[in-house]
């Protein structure tokens, strides 16, 4: 069943086009990743889905309800966590959760069951009485997550939730997301981390307000461009001249420590190998989402 359905969504800021003809569907329990560089329209898209911003045109329905007609009802089905920490710093962990439970009209019984479960799941149970301002970055994110989950939303909308969070907390955070997705919560998450994109069931790549790629991460990575990793052979030196020679063969070139990573133009594998095998040790590797993204942006 489609929990979220977006059709031909467009958004203008004055005359500036921020989102251009966006369409996608999300199923029950799916993790839907919105990937893209800063300024590509990720936050705008999420803010429109939560109703904070108004769209210019297009149709959005969440849990079968039209956002234009039943926005107030939709609120009970969605949970939103913004990029910035939006909770009350002087309230404790428990008070913050209770506050949002109260606003959503969650009953005491429900709160007891779900609150405890969420606190234990996130490891915040021992910090119940700590004021939110005294939590670490990762714990703040988890508290924000609990506060948005307390009313049992069917659709969870997260705007770059792991921005600036340490790697361990990031992994914890994603484990929690996966647990909820298995229980049937649809999760929309924006991210600029490509490794997180690989954890989604479905992704869209946004660039300048348009969807440039859509699909699940495995499909998306099936591109007909070859990705090569080059290591300089002994005794050879790299100079600007060589880079200039490589450029006509590739759509993207990047440097990773001692290695050079290139995305070749279509069907350019043989000619490239012939040209450069005296200079580099050439190794074909499987493309990552980042490669796909770079290839698309290079077009």
């Amino acid at each position, binding site marked *: 069943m489609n929990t979220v359905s977006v059709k031909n969504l467009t958004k203008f800021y004055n005359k500036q086009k921020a989102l251009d003809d966006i369409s996608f569907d999300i199923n029950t329990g799916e993790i839907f990743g919105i990937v893209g560089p800063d300024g590509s329209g990720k936050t705008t898209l999420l803010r429109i889905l939560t109703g904070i911003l108004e769209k210019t045109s297009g149709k959005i329905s969440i849990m079968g309800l039209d956002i234009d007609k039943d926005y107030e009802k939709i609120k009970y089905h969605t*949970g*939103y966590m913004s990029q910035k920490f939006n909770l009350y710093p002087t309230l404790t962990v428990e008070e913050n959760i209770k506050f949002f439970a109260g606003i959503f009209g969650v009953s005491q019984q429900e709160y007891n069951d779900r609150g405890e479960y969420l606190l234990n799941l996130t490891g915040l149970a021992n910090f119940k009485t700590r004021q939110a301002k005294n939590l670490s970055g990762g714990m703040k994110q988890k508290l924000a997550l609990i*506060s948005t989950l307390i009313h049992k939303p069917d659709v969870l909308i997260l705007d770059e939730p792991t921005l600036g969070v340490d790697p361990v907390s990031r992994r914890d955070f994603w484990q929690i997301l996966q647990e909820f997705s298995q229980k049937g919560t649809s999760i929309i998450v924006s991210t600029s981390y490509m490794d997180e994109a690989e954890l989604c069931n479905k992704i869209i790549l946004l660039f300048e307000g348009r969807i440039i790629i859509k699909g699940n991460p495995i499909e998306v990575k099936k591109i007909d461009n070859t990705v090569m990793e080059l290591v300089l052979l002994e005794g050879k030196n790299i100079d600007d001249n060589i880079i200039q020679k490589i450029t006509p063969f590739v759509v993207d070139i990047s440097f990773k420590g001692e290695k050079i990573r290139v995305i070749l133009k279509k069907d350019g594998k043989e000619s490239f190998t012939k040209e450069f095998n005296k200079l580099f040790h050439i190794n074909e590797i499987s493309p990552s989402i980042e490669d796909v993204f770079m290839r698309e942006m290079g077009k």
Partner: protein
Amino acid sequence: MKTSKSRILKIFHKEILHIIRGRMLPLLVVAPILQMLVFGDVVTTEIKHISIMVVDRSLSSYSRLLISKFSNVEYFDLKTVSNDRNDIQTALTKGDVKCVLSIPEDFEEKIKKGEKTSLQFITDGSNSNVGSAALNYGSIIIYNFSKEIFSDKMRQFGNVIGHIPDITIEERILFNPELKSTDTMIPGIIGLILIIVTMVIASLSLVKEKEYGNIEQLIVTPIKPYELLLGKILPYIIIGLIDVIFITVAGILIFKVPFMGNILLLLVLSLLAIFVNLGIGTFISTISATQQQAMISAMFFMLPNMLLSGFIFPIKNMPQVIQYITYIMPLRYYIVILRGIFLKGLTFMELLPEVTALFIYALVVSILALKKFKKTVG
């Protein structure tokens, strides 16, 4: 309806916690009382104990009699008596005294001869209030002195010309008989402090939600703008009323300010003033993005309210144009109500014009503020 009430209570509870944790309570309750103590004592419009020097070159019984008149009133503090005119310049320049009375050599001689004589009264105009007060008090003392001499002389001829008619003014000031400025200041301070607590602090607390992004998190919840607003301002209404009671009690106990009216009427009408302030505060919060901006906007409202409401300067002394401007200052009406209830014991019907003005004011700003608030939140 039940869920709406519980949402308002939830916001209210959160705000109270925030006020307590943010150590705002002392600021909101104790600070107003300290302010009252300072204002009540310092902001006095009476001028007393003006230092004076007398240059007595007459050195006669009449001159001594005149000097004694000056040293016996609380308006003047007699610092020095000299007989050298050159001392005048130095004493005034150094600021040792604020005014000088100079008595000429032939003072007694001329009085006895029945001729006209004049005294010199020199004041320091650098503080015009003190200068003019000194001149006023000085003239009165000298006038009375001259009248006394005149009556003495006339009495000697009483047998010849009969009794001398004498008209005097019997002064009686109602409601604040001693013209004590604290009596008028303390009620005014209630108005001022209510502005600080309910307009400034409440607008800051509303802007804070916006500045910290809390509003964005609340928009996605089922809460309605009016529920949020009500829950947020309720604590400040309560604190405002507590402050009114505290300052009234402290004013009566510490400054012996008379309280002639009805305390309940005072609270009800204060509630009206609180609504006006909160309306303006809410409005300020909708046009400000940060607390700093809100603070500046609030100051912009507060200062003219203080200066043009009759709190410090009487409205009747202002230029006509400014007098018209005072009509848009809500504090103007509230001060009349406060002083009326405190000093005159006025009742609701007697205060009706001010109450009506304040009521209309409250209605207009509340509607405006709620509309504007809905736009920024919803």
